[in-house]
């Protein structure tokens, strides 16, 4: 199969890949557009030979191509070799790898935030990719160990059955048990940017997160919240977003965000949102869930317990500094818009998370893996001193600085291979023509974090009542 790669020039620089048969030399745009309106199975049934390299990534592409307004985009136009492709033109597929550039019809109307509906998109994505998503959820869930039982006593063993039975045949306890397990799984997935860096995906949708987590990777707070929201949307569980920032989020934040969208980024929204959580409504109760990990404790709080957090915010120390985050409930469309901006608009978001926001490649309770630009000489000393001083202040072990020459000294093959892969990608993808140096990784062992999850007593009582009686 050959590769047909679409590169979004006007969005966030994301790429979408299709596999086309080696014998296929051209593809009429009209047919390509028809192909894009169909799910993978439907396209196959209609005789299309090309297929998506990654079915869930393809859903994001279909969302962008078929419903650009819902992704805050104007309609797409396609270019090959700087030549616009009209409906009757064809994509030339003679090369082993073909590149098509995606741009926008600039004359079309500006995007309208009211058009965004992530829940609808999530449900469509699930409908088109039930098996892929269910397999990922099932692989992590372990229904044998964490039983979900219907009202008539049947044990469910796959997410597909949960989706069928959830609305009418699961009691409140089993619904909560299911959701708690989902949240716990997402929390347990690592807090990392590595998988975005090496795949070149700036931000994963909630659906895309599940196979990524099943493969042992994770994401950042918004991606993880999107993963929980994906499950909620598929099961029609009402949810709403909570956002966090290091400065107070004003009452009119949503109005400012609307102006930001309508001005297409000309007016900056204030403040910059740094944290994204979710509240779900289930069994007559509301639960605030934070699945971030990376030293942010797991939150699963009932309505009463979440109120002080919403009123006074939360503290987070991912690596060195304690940060106070103010939290605010925002309308659903605000959460949808923020996720959509991340997924389709912000260029090089993975690098922003890694370098600008200092989240590095991965944060666990025992290790921070970061990276910095290193062009040698005094810059190397300065950066090493910076990290060493911060470590010393917290009396953490002296960090290790890893570059190409001493990469082999990294303990643990897994980490060594991840760093080697990331170094290659960073060199290739961090496209700053003025930057001629290299990258150095920082391995900072961490310690002294509070570890307990914050789970409301009522949640525990509801999920494990028998055990509670025994303990009492």
């Amino acid at each position, binding site marked *: 199969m050959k590769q047909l790669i679409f590169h979004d020039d006007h969005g966030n620089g994301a790429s979408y890949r299709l596999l086309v048969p080696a014998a296929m030399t051209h593809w009429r745009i009209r047919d390509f557009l028809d192909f894009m309106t169909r799910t993978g199975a439907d396209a196959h049934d209609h005789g299309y030979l090309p297929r998506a390299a990654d079915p869930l990534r393809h859903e994001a592409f279909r969302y962008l191509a078929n419903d650009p307004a819902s992704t805050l985009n104007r309609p797409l136009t396609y270019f090959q070799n700087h030549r616009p492709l009209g409906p009757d033109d064809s994509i030339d597929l003679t090369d082993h790898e073909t590149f098509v550039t995606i741009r926008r019809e600039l004359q079309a109307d500006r995007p309208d935030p009211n058009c965004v509906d992530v829940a609808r998109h999530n449900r469509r994505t699930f409908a088109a990719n039930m098996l892929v998503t269910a397999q990922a959820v099932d692989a992590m869930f372990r229904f044998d160990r964490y039983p979900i039982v219907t009202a008539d006593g049947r044990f469910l063993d796959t997410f597909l059955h949960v989706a069928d039975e959830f609305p009418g045949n699961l009691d409140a306890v089993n619904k909560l048990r299911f959701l708690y397990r989902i949240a716990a799984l997402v*929390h347990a997935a690592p807090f990392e940017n590595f998988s975005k860096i090496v795949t070149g995906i700036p931000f994963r949708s909630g659906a895309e997160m599940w196979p990524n987590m099943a493969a042992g990777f994770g994401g950042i707070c918004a991606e993880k919240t999107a993963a929980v929201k994906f499950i909620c949307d598929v099961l029609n569980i009402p949810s709403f977003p909570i956002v966090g920032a290091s400065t107070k989020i004003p009452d009119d934040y949503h109005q400012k965000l609307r102006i930001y969208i309508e001005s297409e980024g000309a007016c900056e929204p204030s403040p910059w949102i740094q944290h994204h959580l979710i509240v779900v409504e289930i069994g007559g109760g509301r639960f605030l869930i934070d699945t971030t990990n990376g030293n942010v404790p797991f939150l699963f709080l009932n309505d009463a317990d979440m109120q002080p957090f919403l009123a*006074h915010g939360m503290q987070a120390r991912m690596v060195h500094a304690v940060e106070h985050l103010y939290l605010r409930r925002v309308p659903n469309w605000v959460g949808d818009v923020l996720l959509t901006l991340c997924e389709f608009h912000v260029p090089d978001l993975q690098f922003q998370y890694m370098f600008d926001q200092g989240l590095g490649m991965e944060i666990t309770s025992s290790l921070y893996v970061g990276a910095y630009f290193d062009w040698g000489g005094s810059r190397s000393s300065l950066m090493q001193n910076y990290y060493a001083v911060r470590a010393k202040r917290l009396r953490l072990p002296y960090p290790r600085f890893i570059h190409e020459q001493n990469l082999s000294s990294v303990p*643990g093959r897994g980490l060594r291979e991840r760093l080697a892969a990331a170094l290659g990608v960073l060199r290739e993808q961090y496209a700053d023509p003025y930057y001629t140096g290299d990258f150095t990784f920082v391995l900072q062992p961490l*310690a002294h974090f509070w*570890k307990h*999850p914050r789970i409301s007593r009522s949640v*525990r009582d509801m999920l494990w*009542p028998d055990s509670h009686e025994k303990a009492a």
Partner: protein
Amino acid sequence: MSLSYCKQIPSADCRFQPASISEYENDPWDIRISVDDAPLDEAYYFTVDNPAAVKRPIRELLETHALNPDCRSQLDVDEYPELPYLQEELIQYYTNHQNGQLTLEFHVNNNPEPGPINIDEPAEKFLSVCTYHDGSWDYRVLDLVVHPVIPEAGCADRKQFRRRFDDMFLMLLTGYAAGQGDEAYERFQEAALSIGQDNPPNIQVSSEFRTGLMNLERARLVKRSTQDSRDKTAQRFWDLQITEDGQKMLADLRQETDELIRRYEPFASVAIAPPALGVPDGFDARVQMMELDGIDCERTILLLILEDEKERLFEGAAWAEAYESFDVIGQVRDAMAFKTNFSAEILDALKQLAETDA
């Protein structure tokens, strides 16, 4: 060297026993507890309303106030929602300390005299005053820093540990090397059977290792056989083979490890209020469960570590250092020191949960 702590809150001054401290003698005061070098911004604190309580011993104040779960309702949850969860975690540390499973040193932040304090002394001896620059807060505080101490394994301790588990460690190491393919095993043999100073580069085999290997031979778990076609340039005269008895020992250890993993994995992350298995970031109750089952905890933990971390310990040239230092003892002792201390009822409930799940 004695530990000392000089942690500060940004935008506030904390002074140990300032001359002006008597001005606060009628005010409520705080007990603040931070863990080791964690910043004060995320410390636990408890406000004591009775100003005269400063005369009581710190131990009593901890047990009746700050770390008393019955006083949870007095925590300023509205302003600091994290406090009940921090208290829960500190109580676990303290209970382990009381039971002798973990040594907790209590230090006082900004105390000019380094080293731990005696918590049977009255709090007033160690009070500080914390003044915020913007004038929002100005109060007395007992600024405790808890430092968990894991006893370093002494030389005799290490020797005894090695004597107990040397055969097992070496057999697992040899079995691992043999399972890595001909080339890797060849490299292992070159180092393991090298003569005198002819160690391959980067691998220095200690005399203890040679003795350990001879012990395995005496126990007929491995044997040396002369190389069929000895190359004059070779570094060794023999091949190292695992005997039938040795293969059986490895198979038994494999089976035992699998069984241990199966039995104790459900307790790797549990909640206690109420008991629950598989919670994220929960307590690791495995060691306590092992105790409950009456099995040899040290041996079991060692087996699990050698299984979990076999690549780190045995791969490439790392094995020689791992064997010589036997640093794995530290991990075993850490697991013992930080083990949980749940009541028999909770353990029983956890066990029943695991049985139900199974």
